[in-house]
């Protein structure tokens, strides 16, 4: 299993770069993972990451896209409440890329 050395700590990642231990997550680590992809996390990115983490804490799974879109519409305005906006923020897909920065596991199954 690949690991990265971050702030003096060995962080375990799975083959796709997701955190193995959710407890390893820190905001700095999210920034570090994004930087690795050549991305700078803006306030809009953080809005998504924070919601994902809150939802996960409550429901033990990443939210379905429908729920994420609704939440973003609520907090950022209806013009941003669509998947297009989320893909602009996270070109590799909000479910995959944003979940990885947020330290959430990726969903598997008929998805």
């Amino acid at each position, binding site marked *: *299993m690949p690991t990265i050395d971050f702030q003096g700590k060995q962080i375990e990642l*799975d*083959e*796709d770069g997701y955190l193995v231990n959710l407890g390893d997550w820190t905001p700095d680590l999210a920034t570090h993972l994004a930087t690795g992809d050549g991305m700078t996390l803006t306030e809009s990115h953080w809005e998504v990451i924070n919601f994902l983490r809150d939802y996960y804490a409550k*429901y*033990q*799974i990443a939210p*379905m*896209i*429908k*729920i994420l879109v*609704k939440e973003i519409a609520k907090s950022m305005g209806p013009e941003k409440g669509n998947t297009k906006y989320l893909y602009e923020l996270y070109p590799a897909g909000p479910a*995959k890329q944003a979940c990885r920065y947020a330290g959430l596991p*990726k*969903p*598997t*199954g*008929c*998805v």
Partner: protein
Amino acid sequence: MFCWGAKAKSLNAVGFPNARDWNPTEEDWKLPENWQEIFLEGMRERLSKYRSFRLFMDICVRCGACADKCHFFIGTGDPKNMPVLRAELLRSVYRRYFTKAGKMFGKLAGARDLDLKVLKELWYYAFQCTECRRCSVFCPYGIDTAEITIIVRELLNLLGLNIQWTMGPVADCYMKGNHLGIEPHTMVNIFETMCDDIETLTGIKITPSFNRKGAEILFVTPSGDFFADPGTYTCMGYLMLFHELGLDYTWSTYAAEGGNFGFFTSNEMAKRLNSKIYAEAKRLGVKWILGGECGHMWRVMNQYMDTWNGPADFLEVPKSPVTGTVFENARSTRMTHIIEFTADLIRHGKLKLDPRRNDHLKVTFHDSCNTSRAMGIFEEPRYVIKSVCNHFYEMPDGTTREQTFCCGSGSGFNAGENMELRLRGGLPRANAVKYVRDKYDVNMLANICAIDRAALTTSMNYWNPGMGVTGVHELVANALIMTGEKKRETNMRGDPLDMPVEEPEAEAGAAAPADKAAGGKANV
């Protein structure tokens, strides 16, 4: 082209052997020392237990009728993906250890030693077969190559050689009731969200029940339907239809999965996961079970469930409370496919439908491998689609019904790392879709399977950009005129409806073509 190896935590969750983290790209697969012994003992046990397995090992004459029928062979050009040669990978081992000729003459008799290279090859190709069974349709001996793949995967499973995309969902389903690991309170939250959307669309508030004792019907569908688009629109379609009918039914958070990824690991695991459905039906005291749009779920229900976990004599033979139709074909399993249920409703004129609401769509239908080849469900989905849509076009003969092509990602292959194989395997189906797109401007690919909805979305984005993918009950929901609904401004996906402004009086069932039977299976 492969999926990542199964993780220790998932293997441990269900007590599978040799649980450890491993990586298929590394030389060392961390196998037990006596792995050959385990594999061959497993093979011996299955040869004595399953007569079909021994038969399929013995009778192939390598005529090649199956060779070009496999979507993976067509898409990859790899000769070992000809079903005959894929099976040969195991047959050669069978000959070496279980036939006299192979024991005596070895290579001359087409036998080979089971070494690490052979094992790795078996693993690689066992996960390049989606168990779709198209090849078996063409085999003059009726050899079911899927059953050979199933056995190879069982044997690999004895050594902890599974893929995580299958094992993750198996562990989640075992621990939490569904493949995605959606917990009960999360499931309720998701349904509230979907019901909010339905209210926005129709003005009608729906409050489904969960784990309700005494309901007449237990409804079970793949969890992909209530997690991932476009499946969610189909799930909303179920909710709307059941509400309109006033159906006395309940969802379950325990049996919250119709699919069965256990079926892609071993028969025993499939049986364990499947047992939840009858157990829950018994606990809730329902009369019968209705199942959603899924593919492999129905192979399991139709061909295995009764033998594994039956008899379901505590249930009644499914009978539609709306039409009185008794679903004789479900006499033993006591579980009916929703497409049969809905076709029967339409046949009896029980639904008010306005197919013009689907006029923005030119629809074709992809037969799911399992509902077609394992169940013979051909007419019902077509009858339903033609009743709710005005524009329907068939893909060419040889690519539909029992000869349908796999979506390319069935049997637990939907992983991101496996994209090349999925797209290659999806090529034959995509090619047939391209044909109807070019010829008839088809823009929507309908199906009755949750893996299809996920897999075809990805495949179409690559091969036929702009092609939509939908479940049939999303189309039903678009057309369904609900009692007391407000004027629909959009379709299920929130896109504006492109249709005349005035709403004509719709008669019950007036939109249904009355000349077509709802299929031969329901006792109408």
